[in-house]
């Protein structure tokens, strides 16, 4: 792990998806999707509603199988290890690959207890726990705002703060990858901007995968962007290139707002 800030282009991907197909009873949600997620960078996933982008990230930390009735085939590797291998425990996968949802899902407890939830599952307590809670809040840019009163009920925070709390809570488990499913869709523009800036900041330490409806958002924060349409990966490229000189007609139509 080099920490000099320079990104090695040849670095192996942190997640590699190969020929991933997800079927529900009556239809195909994802069809033979193959892509690599680079470490320490923001990867955007765009596409119209129902294109399978949420399912795609939910397969990356084995949350998809919980929806029941889904047949998942193909391969998803995390740092070279197949996460769907029979000996792999999904609980450990989810600790390495965190997830943040569209609407902030705050637990009905204090700010501290929210962030401490994950570390406590692993038996952390005392000073060590407090340090990790403070560090996570700091990383999520929330510590300055909530200040010393971490015993306040988290449900009293604003929507934007709640979403950053969810990010802090995910970070407290010390994942390597953070999957975010339209994390700003339910926020007002200013709160959304703060979350966006935070994601851009987090790419220094984490692989960030951002599913978004908002094309400008992808353009602003994602280094590479994948365009999904009807369960297929249409195009995956440097974001600038995808938006400015798309290779595929479908991509061009979507990024120029002709449908979606």
């Amino acid at each position, binding site marked *: 792990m080099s920490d000099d800030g320079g990104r090695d282009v040849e670095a192996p991907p942190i997640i590699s998806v190969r020929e991933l197909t997800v079927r529900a009873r009556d239809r195909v949600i994802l069809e033979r999707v193959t892509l690599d997620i680079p470490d320490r960078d923001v990867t955007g996933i765009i596409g119209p509603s129902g294109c399978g982008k949420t399912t795609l990230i939910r397969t990356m*930390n084995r949350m998809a199988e919980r929806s029941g009735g889904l047949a998942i085939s193909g391969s998803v590797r995390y740092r070279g290890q197949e996460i769907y291998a029979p000996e792999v425990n999904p609980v450990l996968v989810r600790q390495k690959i965190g997830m943040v949802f569209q609407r902030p*899902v705050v*637990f*009905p407890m204090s700010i501290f207890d929210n962030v401490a939830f994950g570390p406590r599952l692993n038996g952390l307590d005392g000073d060590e726990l407090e340090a990790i809670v403070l560090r996570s809040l700091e990383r999520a840019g929330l510590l300055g705002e909530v200040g010393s009163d971490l015993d306040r009920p988290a*449900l009293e925070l604003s929507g934007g703060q709640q979403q950053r709390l969810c990010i802090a809570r995910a970070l407290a488990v010390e994942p390597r990858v953070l999957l975010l499913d339209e994390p700003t869709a339910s926020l007002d523009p200013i709160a959304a901007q703060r979350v966006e800036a935070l994601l851009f900041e987090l790419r220094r330490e984490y692989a960030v995968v951002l599913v978004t409806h908002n094309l400008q958002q992808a353009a602003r924060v994602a280094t590479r962007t994948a365009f999904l349409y009807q369960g297929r990966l249409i195009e995956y490229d440097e974001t600038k290139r995808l938006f400015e000189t798309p290779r595929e007609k479908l991509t061009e139509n979507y990024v120029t707002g002709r449908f979606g």
Partner: protein
Amino acid sequence: MIRDRGAGPTALAADGAELAAVSPRLRHRLRLDGIVRWALLGAFAAVFFPLFDMIYWVSVRAVPKFTLATFTEYQVGNAGGLAAMIEGTFVLIGLATAFATSIGLIAGIYTAEYAPPAVARIGRLAGNVLAGIPAIVIGYFGYFLFALYTGWGYTTLGGALTLSVLMVPFVYRTADLAFSSVPASQREAALALGARRHQYLRRLAWPIALPTVLTGVFLAMAIGLGETAPLVYTAGWSNTPWTGLFSPTSFLTGAIWLFYEQPPTLGALLTLAFQAAFLLIVIVVALNLGLQWLADRYRRRLRGLGA
């Protein structure tokens, strides 16, 4: 501000008739509204009149005759107090609540979280059926099982176990409901943090579900308190101090049932019957107030929890 916008104040003034003239149609509607309002009030009063009348009827016969002896003395013949019945009621309800809560809660959590859908459906149906079985039938069941089959005869333990059979579906149904209605997003978020299912249940679902579970426990207690039928064939009767789980005991509802039927020459017993009824009403009111208080407290804590 309005004046700035245009025509000036005179343009806004209505000529008297515009707001005062009531058409026949409108008058008819107003009259109908009045009738409906009285009908609603009447129905509302009809629901609560029996309750208040009953409380009054019991209170005037019970309250003036309360003395310390009512609570401390044991009834002998046409004298004494309700000490044995109060002891018995607390022991029976305490034990039955403990049994019904532990079993109902575990079964409810299983139904909500672990059971395959078909099993959960059967469980819920069975719970509803059990809640609807007449108390007297449960009393006979308890008699055959806990008095005859075990060879215990009339015992406090047998009474409490029978009473818990009657109470358990209320705990079970609310526990199932409480855990089923924790928002799915909360579970998702906990699992995405790497929680195992039991960790999710203990650390997140339990605090959210607790107020609802308590509602069920209180409801079961209130229902159990009011029952006589499951106890008369199982707990037996005893107007002497309580001596243990395997001895018979008396209970407040039994005092009402037994003493109210006595001839007028035994007037003290009739008073004890009313006093037992009064005590039960007080306990049930206290349970409900406690429940209200708990519910308010938790609602405040959970406010804003998205579905």
